[in-house]
């Protein structure tokens, strides 16, 4: 924005303007202002719509999902977010939005009885003829259940993710419900960072934020819905990936990552469950809860980021050794782990904590030495976690035979212990792996897979399977116990317990 002298007005001037707009709005009476609410996708903004292959948003219309709060309380399974809550509370004198549950309790004006019921449905005004089509918004009135929760498909520290059906378009979207209950200091700044980043994305291999929704005291982020995630898909018993399929997945992953890295964004949570795939293997990188833009540094300045990032299985050694001046290379290690997973279906470094994770890495990749990582002793925790043995790399022996030579060579580069030796995403895209045959090919066959395969459901299935096995084992053990008691009824309880067979049964 510029002022009348063609100078940037700066954020303050901007805010004042926004504030004035904000205060002057009356959602009940000024429908025009209301329709221009910035979160509603603009009709003429067809570029974004076209770029999303799996969901073409019709654009949530405020009037369509204006909450009927009483209805919602009766049926919590139906998610009917209200869209942005109006700036004025019932009295119109307090702050526009509650900052979180803790402040909610303090606010007398936000008592249940006072929840605004939204604008009253009025007669549809006649549309002015001098308006262009893109200036006219849908004002059809519909029932309150515009979105219907189908099932939960994910969960993390941030909150829960649901698959949700849009009742009018019959299309699915993903709702990420932010967990605000534990927030003491209002709306988390990390969520603001995530939203800000998501809003700036426009790439086929990076998830797009369709909109934000606020209902009661919950905030939802609405995303494209994709049927699978990489961890879930790889756990499918019938999945038989060919080299061309792996390349198709991996190339998209690197393209998406390259887009982020070119924008100076580090994802910081690359892992299988954050890589979403549709019915033919089109891929999107998701979950930017830990992502951050890189600092612009002056000469001699070092970045100083937290190393409490990246799920431990995908965390590179420099972070495990306490680095805080890292860069995009941390994501490259993560995609290296995923490349291996495309061949082995499970993560190859599966530690329980930092020490065991480093142990897994060093056991496979060998311990670092002066030639492959001379600067390692500058890392904060090196003295605490330095290996006391000199281990040789077993990577080649373990994996070379079962991978294509190009894939193996690429994985070797991605999983370099020294972050400085890892290739950039740009360089990976130019790698021989992508140049040589077979060429990447979509995974048409996964269309036939029954159900949807996300890590969340996979874990659920595993839990159920474990429960089933345990029940079977218990039943078998009980049966065996009964048999023993029948065979030797003279045995006392004590003697049964000490017999070897009963020990087995117990186990």
């Amino acid at each position, binding site marked *: 924005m510029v*002022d009348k002298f063609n*100078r940037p*007005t*700066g954020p*303050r*001037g901007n805010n*004042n303007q926004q504030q004035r707009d904000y205060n002057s709005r009356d959602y009940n009476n000024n429908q025009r202002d209301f329709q221009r609410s910035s979160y509603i996708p603009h009709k003429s903004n067809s570029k974004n719509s076209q770029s999303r292959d799996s969901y073409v948003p019709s654009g949530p219309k405020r009037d369509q999902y204006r909450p009927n709060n009483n209805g919602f309380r009766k049926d919590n399974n139906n998610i009917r977010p209200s869209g942005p809550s109006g700036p004025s509370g019932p009295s119109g004198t307090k702050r526009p939005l509650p900052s979180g549950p803790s402040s909610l309790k303090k606010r007398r004006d936000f008592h249940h009885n006072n929840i605004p019921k939204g604008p009253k449905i009025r007669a549809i005004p006649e549309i002015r003829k001098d308006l262009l089509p893109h200036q006219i918004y849908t004002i059809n009135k519909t029932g309150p259940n515009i979105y219907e929760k189908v099932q939960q498909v994910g969960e993390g520290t941030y909150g829960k993710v649901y698959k949700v059906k849009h009742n009018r378009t019959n299309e699915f979207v993903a709702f990420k419900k932010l967990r605000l209950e534990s927030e003491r200091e209002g709306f988390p700044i990390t969520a603001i960072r995530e939203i800000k980043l998501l809003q700036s994305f426009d790439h086929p291999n990076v998830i797009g934020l369709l909109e934000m929704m606020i209902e009661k005291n919950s905030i939802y982020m609405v995303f494209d819905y994709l049927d699978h995630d990489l961890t879930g898909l790889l756990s499918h018993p019938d999945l038989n990936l060919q080299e061309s399929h792996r390349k198709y997945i991996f190339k998209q992953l690197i393209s998406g990552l390259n887009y982020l890295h070119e924008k100076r964004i580090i994802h910081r949570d690359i892992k299988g469950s954050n890589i979403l795939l549709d019915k033919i293997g089109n891929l999107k990188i998701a979950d930017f809860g830990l992502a951050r833009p890189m600092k*612009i540094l*002056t000469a001699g300045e070092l970045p*100083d980021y*937290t*190393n*409490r990032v990246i799920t431990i299985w995908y965390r590179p050694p420099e972070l495990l050794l*306490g680095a*805080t001046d890292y860069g995009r290379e941390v994501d490259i290690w993560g995609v290296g782990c995923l490349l291996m997973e495309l061949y082995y279906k499970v993560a190859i470094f599966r530690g329980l*904590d*930092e*020490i*065991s994770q*480093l*142990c897994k890495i*060093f*056991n496979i990749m*060998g*311990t670092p*030495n*002066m030639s492959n990582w001379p600067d390692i*002793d*500058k890392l*904060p*925790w*090196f*003295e*605490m*976690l*330095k*290996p*006391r*043995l*000199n*281990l*040789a790399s*077993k990577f080649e022996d373990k994996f070379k035979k079962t991978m294509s030579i190009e894939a193996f060579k690429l994985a070797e580069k991605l999983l370099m212990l020294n972050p400085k030796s890892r290739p950039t995403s740009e360089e990976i895209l130019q790698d021989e792996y992508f140049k040589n045959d077979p060429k990447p090919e979509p995974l048409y066959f996964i269309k036939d897979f029954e159900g949807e395969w996300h890590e969340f459901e996979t874990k659920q299935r595993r839990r159920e399977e474990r429960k089933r096995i345990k029940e079977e084992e218990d039943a078998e053990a009980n049966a065996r116990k009964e048999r023993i008691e029948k065979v030797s009824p003279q045995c006392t309880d004590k003697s049964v317990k000490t017999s070897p067979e009963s020990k087995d049964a117990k186990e």
Partner: protein
Amino acid sequence: MDSFDIANQFAQLLRNLTPQIGVLNKAATFALKNSDNEDYLFPTILNVLHDKNLNINQKSTIFQFIDVLIDEAHKYNGAYVKNIEKILPAIIKNICVSSSNMFNVYQSLCSISKHFKINVKEYEDKFYTDLLTEEDKKLIEENGQIESKKFDDHGLILAWKILLERKRRSQFERAKLLRSNPIHETVEEDELFKVKSKDKYALSKRQILSRLEDDRELHKRSKENLWNVNRDKSVLTEQEFKDHYWNKFNALNDEEGKEFFNALSDLNDLVSASYKDQQY
């Protein structure tokens, strides 16, 4: 409370220190408020450090406390600074019995050094270099042992030299290890990191994990004051904005500085004009 009681209470505080800024500040404030009893209190630091039951992590935390204490001492006429400088070499020797503490000690010592009028840049830089001499490298090839150097210095310089000597020993041990034949079998974490070592100066797995978490938390907390300014008067000036914020990212020369203030002035005029009512 008499001096003895205060010293006892101080010792108790030191033993129960946790690496959290609030706790460290509290202990430092206690020491500084009782600086009349400095002669009783400062030897307490060494006494506590020599306690055989004190674990390695706790020793490191005490050094962080010393860092905070010296940082705050200027508010109390530089109490403790001279006395601590005298015992600094002994403290470093005690805390660096385990190489695990070396990095934390280095960081705190850098910070402490700023409060003395001695240039230690040379030592700070050396910490990140290869400290092994040609003689050391020869010994590595011969699988020999190095002997610790003795220094004639005292105070801060001696403290630095002791730290660098510890670092040299650590480099020597690592270089020897890397010359050994690599192992091809898979090993357990206990073997690889010696986390179950009976060596009383080695950290257990639990202690290491707790240290990692503490360090992360401290790092997080350290950022909370990133933009704090020690302002003598309660007056906010444009100069402060330029020095503390703008110059952090792009230092301006005199000419640019003038332009900067002109631009700020224009912006202020613009903002003032945007108000309906007269502001000032």
